[in-house]
């Protein structure tokens, strides 16, 4: 199959499963592009994910950076559109269909049902990324330190990403 069609199918399928945001799909993206399709090594995936984090913009940038890595600018655009269109059209339909849905019961039920799934998926994503990126004591310390600091402090994420890169540059 044409590579652009593959990207469109892969990310299009994930769009409606991004419960609580694009980060919930990171384990599946990693499984598909590393284990199933062998487009990237585990370390490359972790680094591209990190690059998408260091740039501004919504979390869907992971689809942009992977699409572009695999198939150039067209790949980046196709992957991103596939990732956002199905869920975006659903939002438009739902927000138009319900004149008053603020605080509606279905919304509370949906949130309550999705939150634990999101929690499980984001923790799974954390484990996948940690296994891909930790290769020794220094990277383990960086990951652990950033986890604690981002969990407990209000430090801006860019400081943590910059600090991690600097430590890697100076000490690896």
């Amino acid at each position, binding site marked *: 199959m044409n590579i652009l069609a593959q990207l469109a199918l892969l990310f299009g*399928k994930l769009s409606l*499963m*991004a*419960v609580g*945001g*694009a980060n919930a799909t990171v384990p599946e993206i990693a499984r598909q592009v590393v*284990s199933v399709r062998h487009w990237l090594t585990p*370390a490359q995936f*972790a*680094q*591209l*994910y*990190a*690059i*998408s*984090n*260091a740039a*501004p*913009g919504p979390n869907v*940038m992971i689809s*942009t*950076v992977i699409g*572009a*890595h695999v198939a150039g*600018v067209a790949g*980046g655009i196709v992957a991103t559109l596939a990732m*956002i269109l*199905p869920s*975006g059209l659903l939002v*438009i339909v739902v*927000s*138009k269909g319900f*004149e008053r849905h*603020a605080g509606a019961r279905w919304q509370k*039920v*949906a949130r*309550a049902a999705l*939150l*634990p*799934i999101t*929690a*499980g998926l984001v*923790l*799974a*994503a*954390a484990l*996948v*990324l*940690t296994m891909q990126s930790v290769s020794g004591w220094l*990277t383990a310390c*960086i990951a652990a330190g*950033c*986890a604690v600091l981002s*969990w407990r402090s209000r430090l*801006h*994420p860019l400081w*943590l*990403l910059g600090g991690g*890169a*600097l430590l890697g540059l100076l000490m690896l």
Partner: protein
Amino acid sequence: MQHNRAPGLSHKDLFLGFFEAGVLGFGGVLPIARRVVVEKRRWLTQEQFNELFSLCQSLPGANMVNFSFAFGARNQGLSGAAVAVLGILAAPMAIVMVFGGLYARYGTLGPVRHALAGLAAAAAGLMLGAGLKIAGPVLRQGRNIGIAAAVFVLVVGLRLPLPLVMLLVLPVSLVLAARAVK
């Protein structure tokens, strides 16, 4: 929700407002988008913003991209949605593709490789921190722990495809939530 439509927002307004939120949205777009939409341009009150954001959160997809779709569509229909989404994504997509190009070209050079290894470890840590933040309040209830643990094991233990995991877990989670939510 008629009251969520600020009067007279042109396509240009929509593009520029969401462009600002996208290009400045380092480490998450929500805070900057809230500032642009609520405080700076006064397109929505805080309460209206919360209502629309809460809808976007209860549906799949990236929250702020969903927000751009919904807000754009309410103001100018489908073309408004397209313009708002283009606004929030244009600059970040261009920037991340330039970064990706530099990575493909120079990513294997010694010093760059070391910096990237540290960057990737930091990003993994950020994801873990985000997971702990989400899990903290969610996992105080037994049903939530069961669902989250099942998802975790199915995804990283059994390495099942995500569509299959959702098919297995979502119905159970919806039934449990429907019983719990009054």
